[in-house]
């Protein structure tokens, strides 16, 4: 039987024929940051379009005041090229789920093993109250940052900016839930553990009101970049790390608690990535050839405003350092580390330390 051309099956595989464009096997519409485009760049760049690049027909729906679907006016910061930013952590969906899932498994393993070995019952009693009242209060701070960043990820001018904020939100919300479920589970082994104490302290205890005010100032900011900036460059080094690393992780072991530091350590690793992303973006903006001076002035204002709130919040937390029975580190030492941290951050991006 003869085979007519119509019946012959044309292989659809690469290389089955050579013609113009048959070897064009890379996304070719953006400049990679390095010599070759990373997989993250291929997954991310230009998915959110821009009338200044390829968006021929402009945004086709607007808000009632004429603001288009995406607008540069949603932050007071200015950039000569928002598209230049690439997230340092290079996250796309697969790497994000792999990392989050690994952390979830690690945290659950820690909790299961700790409970199986009866560890919570051996925690120092004063320390249990610290966990119940203060780690219980702090989980709300993490949730506030997570929801604030969930809001912020709507507003950035490029996909790279918004996806970096989105993954940051995802990390914060996961950690707030990690703490919530950790406390709920060790509470099963601790007689009289009050699951509602944390929220009560968050809402009413004077120790936490500075922190709550600082978080609510971030949640209430209407500039999405201010929310991202204040979260990672101000609140985290001055309050978040201070409490997590400077208090919980320093003190826990001496109170017979090997579990809590492992749960909290995940947030420190999350933060290193989110800090790197934020520093990269803010550094780009403070060194912008056209708008660097404007941006520095703006960011110094944000740093001063949120820095004052964060300093006040940190100072209010000082009494917590006195509550564990065994004292292995002081508030002054922790604060000195926080001061070094924010000085290093400010030096990196060229801003005044608050």
């Amino acid at each position, binding site marked *: 039987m003869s085979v007519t051309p119509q019946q012959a099956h044309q*292989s*659809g595989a*690469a*290389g*089955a*024929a*050579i*013609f*113009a*464009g*048959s*070897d064009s*096997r890379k*996304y070719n*519409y953006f400049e990679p940051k390095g010599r070759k485009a990373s997989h993250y760049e291929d*997954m*991310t*760049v230009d*998915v959110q379009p821009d009338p200044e*690049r*390829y968006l*021929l*027909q*402009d*945004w*086709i*729906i607007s*808000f*009632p005041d004429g603001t*288009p*679907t995406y607008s540069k006016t949603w932050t007071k910061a200015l950039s000569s090229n928002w598209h230049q930013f690439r997230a340092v952590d290079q996250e*796309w*969906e*697969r790497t994000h*789920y*792999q990392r*989050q*899932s690994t952390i*979830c498994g690690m945290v659950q393993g820690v909790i*299961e093993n700790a409970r199986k070995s009866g560890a919570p019952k051996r925690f120092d009693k004063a320390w249990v109250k610290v966990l119940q009242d203060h780690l219980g209060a702090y989980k709300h701070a993490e*949730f506030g940052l997570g*929801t604030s960043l*969930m809001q912020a*990820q*709507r507003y950035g001018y490029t996909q790279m900016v918004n*996806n970096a904020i*989105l*993954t940051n*939100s*995802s990390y914060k*919300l996961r950690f707030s*839930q990690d703490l*919530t*479920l950790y406390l*709920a589970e060790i509470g099963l082994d601790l007689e009289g553990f009050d699951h509602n104490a944390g929220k009560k302290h968050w*809402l009413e205890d004077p120790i936490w009101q500075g922190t709550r*005010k600082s978080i*609510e100032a971030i949640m*209430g900011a*209407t500039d999405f970049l201010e929310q991202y900036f204040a979260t990672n460059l101000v609140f985290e080094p001055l309050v978040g790390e201070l409490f997590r690393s400077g208090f919980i992780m320093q003190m826990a072991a001496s109170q017979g608690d090997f579990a809590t530091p492992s749960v909290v350590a995940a947030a420190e690793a999350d933060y290193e990535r989110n800090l790197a992303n934020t520093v990269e973006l803010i550094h780009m903006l403070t060194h912008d050839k056209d708008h660097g001076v404007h941006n520095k002035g703006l960011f110094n204002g944000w740093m001063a405003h949120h820095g004052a709130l964060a300093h006040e919040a940190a100072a209010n937390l000082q009494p917590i350092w006195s509550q564990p029975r065994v004292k292995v580190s002081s508030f002054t030492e922790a604060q000195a580390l926080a001061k070094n941290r924010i000085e290093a951050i400010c030096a990196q991006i060229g801003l005044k330390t608050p």
Partner: protein
Amino acid sequence: MSETLTLNKIVSQKGISTAEAANRVSDLGWTPSYVQEAMTFPTDYKISKVPRDPMKQVLRSYFPMQEEKDNRVYGALDAALRGDMFRNVEPRWVEWMKLFLAIIPFPEISAARSMAMVGRLAPGEELRTGFTMQMVDEFRHSTIQMNLKKWYMENYIDPAGFDITEAAFGKCYATTIGRQFAEGFLTGDAITAANIYLTVVAETAFTNTLFVAMPSEAARNGDYALPTVFLSVQSDESRHIGNGHSMLMAMIHDPSNHQLLERDLKYAFWQNHAIVDAAIGTFIEYGTTNRDKNKESYAELWHRWIYEDYYRTYMLPLEKYGIKIHHDDVAAAWDRIVKKNYVHKTAQFFTVGWSFNFWRIEAQTEKDFEWFEHKYPGWYAEFGDFWKWHAKLSVPGEKNIAFNGDVGYVYPHRCWSCMVPCLIREDFCCDEVDGKMYTYCSEGCRWTHKVAFAAEYEGRATPAMGRFSGRREWEECYHGWDHADAMVDLGFVRSDGKTLVPQPHLRFEQKDMWTLDHIRGNTLGSPLRSFRALKAGTERDAAIAEYRKGFKINPCN
């Protein structure tokens, strides 16, 4: 060994229940007292009832579940390559993926962004966890689809069109139709956009044709990758449908919301129909080589997923809350698909415009004709000659079908609302909005622009409602341009600087490929400009009457 002794019993310890975990997580929020959250994305709806989260899932079970789903997807992609999928795949199918996958990552990520809009509107925190997971899901969908597209680009015979994908998304008229779909999720009234249009209508109804029906057709064409990715995507949709319904239930008890709900259910249904059915109907019916007469046609799929599943089991029960359902629109959409040949006319239009796009469209053949006639009696009489013309004119040097008077096709007006052209000629209409004349494909689309997207609805102020903007008629962007110059500007030219990315066939030899020289000499024009230039009254009325009469394709011998 004792029958009661198992490893599970040895290591088990009392934990907290899923419901309790969800309850504790939903208590993380509080009402700020130092600084109020700004209502940055307003709505005209009132939401006083706390929505419930029907899924009761927390992130520590969510992330491992999603990672497992990802592992299956990526493992399947590797297996497809090892099984030499591309040797057997149908290029007719993969070519349409250049269009589909150029569009879909932006609607997905727009849905992620839109979670910011509903996240703050819902009182209470319970549903916020649901919105959080949806946000991360949509991030998953957007990047997993970009990955799939890259994978096609690396392994399919003709990567041109995939390589320019996001640039093409910004420039092609067909992708702009997809952008109307996506921008609707995240612009304007927050509830209209992120709840009714996105979750209640697009995700509850139309993702079934997008992410369930279309993957089945992919598999019939030797493409196992698309079903792998998109059925995994669809498995996230049940959560999103739950979010949408829960939010809807939090509003539906307040009668002051009913007027807006009726507007938005109507708007969202009609736009989803006009956009999704045009695109997905074309991919399924015309992108396939499988002509099994026992499989469902797009019309049959639509009846199953949209009519039975959405309209009868989801929408109709809303009537008991006092909501007036737009029954007439559902009937009109059905008629457009089965009686007025909406999908066939869309595929015809895409094909007339092959040389303005960035993928290949080959002619349908006798085998296809037989299937179409079986599924849609009368199809051959209306469309048979057209496809013969397309086959005949697919050879370089023939006169381009878009400008070839012998064919008999009349280039259509563009609909200002859905942005699909006005293909059902008898339904063509026009109207003035803010003193300017616009053209529409249907009464539903005229109503959408003039009545729904306005500052007032039936005497009620709607200050949060969005507006149509931008250069919505694509043809106007290139009015007066030479066709070849427009293609250079669009970037739809291959790496040799002259061969077009789109081709009217699946022949992969260089000698068969159209170049800029083959299309030079024809001038593009804006139908709307010409229409607006007509004198109001007799001249315009005559043009409308003529347009509504339609055209007849000439016999192709």
